[in-house]
């Protein structure tokens, strides 16, 4: 599949400090690509360079073969940008905002009207389109913020943490809308420090920390990097005797078993497969179970594994 964006050794230096340090990645047409990393990882600086807002110190990126350095206007025609902040005029209505931004993207007349109606429908705010933005809830503002990015029918939609400060319900709405747009063929570059969002939306992910990409690949590829062990945590009502440990090790095919009074922690390769056997074993020994927790490796644990710190640090 054709690459829509190719980033090569992109670097941005501010006062001697490397905000982005020689990053490279590609995004294929129709793909949803995630840039995951904690605050200060360099995600927004990367997006700003790709949106032609700030020039890179070195390196380059091409969007549909147009250089962000040499052909910024051409690049801007091909991308829709949804900034981290709600960049709308609060005293104008949603529709007035969309008309203004559409005109800035070069739309006019009937095409503009159709496009405004279309994006309002996508974000589900047709009914409230005549209300002023300052009357909107945070989630609704975010949705209009995204709608603006969709106006130019972009080849690539770039979203910089678009759900910051949004309630869970609105977040789900936004993510589902984006998922649908992606399914319909829109290429997405999505940055977030929320692991669940990236897991939900993105096919491939680049993990950033301190300006560098420390890992990238499909979600499965990245999980493998984190280590193969699933973690089973079982809390019991009755005491678990130490001598049961050996039997559990046999059943779960691992040596990584810790027993402490009324808790068992098992690290195994196939957590879901061995769990029923362990439950059966505990039942046979008249040990009542209080709770069971299965933890499979995810991007959060990958980040922890690679950097020694949590994503939200």
């Amino acid at each position, binding site marked *: 599949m054709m690459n829509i964006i190719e980033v090569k050794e992109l670097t941005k230096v501010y006062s001697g400090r490397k905000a982005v340090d020689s990053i490279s990645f590609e995004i294929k047409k129709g793909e949803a690509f995630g840039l995951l990393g904690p605050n200060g990882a360099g995600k927004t600086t990367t997006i700003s360079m790709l949106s032609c807002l700030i020039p890179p110190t070195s390196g380059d990126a091409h969007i549909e073969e147009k250089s962000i350095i040499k052909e910024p206007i051409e690049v801007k025609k091909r991308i829709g940008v949804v900034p981290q902040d709600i960049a709308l005029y609060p005293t104008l209505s949603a529709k007035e905002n969309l008309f203004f931004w559409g005109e800035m993207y*070069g739309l006019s007349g009937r095409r503009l009207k159709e496009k405004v109606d279309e994006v309002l429908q996508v974000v589900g705010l047709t009914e409230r389109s005549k209300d002023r933005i300052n009357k909107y809830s945070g989630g609704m503002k975010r949705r209009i913020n995204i709608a603006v990015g969709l106006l130019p029918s972009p080849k690539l939609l770039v979203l910089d943490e678009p759900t910051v400060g949004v309630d869970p319900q609105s977040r789900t709405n936004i993510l589902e809308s984006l998922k649908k747009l992606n399914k319909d063929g829109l290429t997405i570059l999505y940055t977030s420090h929320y692991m669940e969002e990236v897991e939900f939306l993105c096919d491939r992910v680049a993990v950033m920390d301190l300006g560098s990409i420390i890992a990238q690949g499909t979600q499965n590829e990245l999980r493998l990097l984190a280590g193969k062990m699933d973690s089973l945590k079982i809390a019991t009502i009755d005491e678990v005797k130490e001598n049961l440990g050996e039997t559990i090790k046999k059943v779960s095919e691992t040596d990584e078993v810790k027993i402490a009074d009324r808790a068992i922690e098992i690290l195994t390769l196939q957590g879901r497969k061995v769990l029923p056997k362990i439950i059966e074993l505990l039942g046979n020994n008249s040990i009542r179970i209080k709770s069971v927790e299965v933890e499979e490796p995810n991007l959060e644990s990958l980040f922890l594994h690679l950097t020694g710190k949590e994503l939200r640090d």
Partner: protein
Amino acid sequence: MRKIFLIGIKDVKIRARDSSSFIMLLAMPLLLILVLGMVFQPLWTSTPFTIDIAVFDEDGGEFSKILLEEVFGSEQLKNMIKIKYVDSEEEIINEVNKGKIAAGVIIGEEFSQAIMIGENTRIKVLGDPEQIIKAGVIKNIVEAFTLEVLKRRIILGTSMGILVAKNLINPAEIQRLIPVWLSEIENIGKLIQVDKKTEKRMDKNPLAMEYYAVGMGVMYILFATNAGAETIFQERRNKTLERIKTAPVSEREILGGKLFGIFLIALLQFVMIVFFTRIFYRVNWGDSILGIIIMTLSSVLAFSGLSTLLASLTKSEEQIGNIGPALAMIFGFMGGGMWPASNFPGWLNMVSKFTPNRWAIDGFLKLMYQGGGVVSIIPEVFVLLFMAAVFFSLGVFRLRAKGVKID
């Protein structure tokens, strides 16, 4: 070009929806024009006020005649000083106590005779303490008169002394010649002259309402352009400027759009002030519609440039919000917004010519009172456009240097 226009129109739309802007940019100047026009109207009429006085003339001689007829009755003072002749000092005291007159003048018996023979004499001025300014005016006029008389008496005394000492004249003849000489001195020139000269001669005097419609209207253009310039910072704060930059819009278009917005906001405000004052305050802005349009455009351009420069020199919305109104007030007053700058002391009059307000006010007043049409305002328009060019160039240069590029 289209995007410049769209950005400007958007700024006007946003400003129009801001109720505080409506109050600040439209209601305030209109209210100020009304209040100032009404309060200061007496100062703007050709006879700013009249002074009622009473005179008890016991003398009836040569010098009292000069004071009453040639000084109080002079062309310059006759419309201001209303004289009532009375028959006693008590009557004057009574009138003053009742507040019916501002001052009373009592010219003693043989006042003129005493002057002629070189004896001491006096004129009494009784003033109403509650009309201290008017009474003071009368006192000053009488003092000036007596000073002039004294001066002439000294001239006469010295001359006569020399003539007698050199035996050129018989002392017996002196008594006969004094009135003749005095009369001849009198013919040389008026005793007291009020200087009628002003820097500008208007065909008629402006009415307060009309003057303040121009003065305040012009002053508030700067308020409006400052409000427009604030939108540059608002766009930054709202992150919308950054977003415009992610669209295929050039920096030139963004800057052009912002400047067009500044111009448009001020233009609409001033046009509304002109219409409102014309219809509701009956202000006559002159017969030359083209002249008014040209003056309006050039004034708004000059102030737009000034605000652009101000925006380039300030660092935040708060800064421009604090400095802008102060600058507008200083320029407004210094440029003649409250009182004609041509009446300022020499140095201040000169300084006022560095403000766009001065040229804008002068231009509009020419259209209103000289009826000269477009040709008469060429110097003012030229200076305003020159100011606009300088301010815009500096402002745009600085804005681009520090980045409407957006940091």
